[in-house]
């Protein structure tokens, strides 16, 4: 069913809608347009796995909240590698990006963790990741990226969680706040997808330290293929004059992994979280319909 030459495959990726029975010529013309678009997809079994579940500092400028040096954060993978104990996160509240009210809110989160309790993390409680939390949702599950003519659909197998980025359209005049906000995007050159997100629910956190934001949050993500397409890097610019003293930026990296789709339903395994005092899973007191 799928044509094997690289140029036409590129066309299929960006214009699957357009590839119909009678449009061989149109497919050729799409191939020329498609050549300029990065291929984050390749096929159904080459998704992306994040290299870590922390926002990384960008090459320069103010950066994301990291751990308090007195309480080093060790993720599960690092603990396995080094034979040490994984830890929960304690935020470095001296980060100058944080406004005083955010520091105070996060101090409570730190105290909660230092008291031996478990801080809310979207993935652990089956809540949506939000943006930019999407890029650090889970180390363990791959992200599949589906590129079509009008939309980029990103699926995190864990959950699963689905996020949509609309191509070549402006933001709506008054988008309703939602867990993933409203994302619009464009391709920049032949290697980058630029996604701009607003109207992100204030129930989401920026990261897994509980860094809060307001309804003024504005996020620009630049997804770029690097290392010959074996890796994907995301540069993230964040502005929110309601929560941060300054615009700041962060980074995340993903590696392509050979994985086929598997069903991983968050809500079925996490009702009891080892009897810790945690936020209940999303559930309905009465059926939706």
């Amino acid at each position, binding site marked *: *069913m*799928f*044509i094997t030459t690289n140029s036409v*495959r590129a066309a*299929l*990726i960006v214009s*699957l*809608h*357009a*590839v*119909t*029975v009678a449009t*061989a010529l149109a*497919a050729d013309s799409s191939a020329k347009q498609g050549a300029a678009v990065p291929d984050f*997809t*390749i*096929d*159904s079994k080459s998704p992306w796995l994040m290299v870590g579940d922390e926002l990384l500092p960008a090459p320069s400028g103010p950066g994301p909240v990291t751990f308090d040096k007195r309480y080093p954060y060790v993720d599960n993978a690092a603990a396995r590698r080094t034979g040490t104990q994984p830890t929960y996160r304690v935020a470095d509240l001296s980060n100058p990006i944080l406004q005083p009210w955010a520091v105070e809110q996060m101090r409570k989160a730190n105290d909660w963790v230092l008291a031996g309790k478990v801080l809310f993390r979207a993935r652990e409680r089956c*809540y*949506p990741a939000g943006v930019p939390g999407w890029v650090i949702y889970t180390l363990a599950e791959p992200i*599949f990226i*589906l*590129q*079509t003519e009008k*939309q980029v*659909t990103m*699926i995190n197998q864990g*959950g*699963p*969680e*689905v996020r*949509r980025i*609309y191509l070549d359209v402006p933001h709506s005049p008054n988008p309703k706040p*939602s*867990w*993933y906000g409203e994302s619009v995007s464009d391709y920049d050159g032949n290697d980058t997808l630029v996604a701009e997100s607003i109207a992100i629910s204030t129930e989401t956190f920026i990261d897994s330290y509980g860094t809060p934001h307001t309804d003024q949050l504005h996020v620009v993500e630049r997804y770029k293929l690097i290392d010959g397409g074996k890796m994907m890097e995301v540069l993230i610019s964040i502005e929110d004059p309601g929560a941060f003293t300054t615009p700041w930026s962060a980074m995340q990296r993903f590696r392509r992994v050979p994985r086929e*789709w*598997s*069903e991983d*339903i968050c*809500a*079925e395994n996490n*009702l009891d979280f080892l009897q810790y005092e945690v936020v209940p*899973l*999303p*559930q*309905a*007191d*009465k*059926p*939706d*319909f």
Partner: protein
Amino acid sequence: MSIFWIFARAGFVWTAILAIPAMSGSAYAETPDISGTYWATEYRAKIQLVGGSDLPLTEAGKAAYEKNMAGLKDGSITDAARKYCVPDGLPRVLATPYPFEIIQAPPGQVTIIHELNHQVRVVAMDKPMPSEKDLTTFPFYNGHSVGHFEGDTLVIETAGFNEKTFIDAAGAPHTDEMRTVERIRRISPTQLEDVITIHDPQYYSRDWQARFVYNLRNDVRLEDYVCGEPHRDLSSVAGVRRP
């Protein structure tokens, strides 16, 4: 199992014959486009069989159905798809009163994404069904699906289900031996039809079919769905009763 394959092969022969005119010429470039956002205009809690008959339950099927209905009524059985928003599974998800997307990507795959419970169905195109060992080792809510086009119709075969779902909201049962075949096609420029055949001989004495029709609604964007929150207005879908 064997009856199913006879049925499936017979179906394939007929559709292959019918599909010959459509497949002449350079067949492999001719992937029909059924992508889009779709939304039903009616919802039925109880599945309706093509032909209007009752579910052809075996004795074991009848007992399972009665147990489910009684348990759902007295609360001893939880409808996890509505309480915790785990996937509805097939064929219940086809009755969804929420919109869903069909995306013909990545290459070699058709992906169906539902707003309800953010369910994802992955259909591997032109691939063989996974082995019986894989199907039984990794049972899924939505099963394991393989698909191919017969003319303009997407044919999806699914097997390897878990037993955590119901056939419908009334609690009609199925076993993990259930196999389904869906035939999905555009019946007009703005409507999509999915006719599903259910094969589950432990609980049903014959294969039976149900039919679902959806309107093409590319004007609708799918929304985030988190269990227990207020969700989109469904007043355009007849038969939806919100408690």
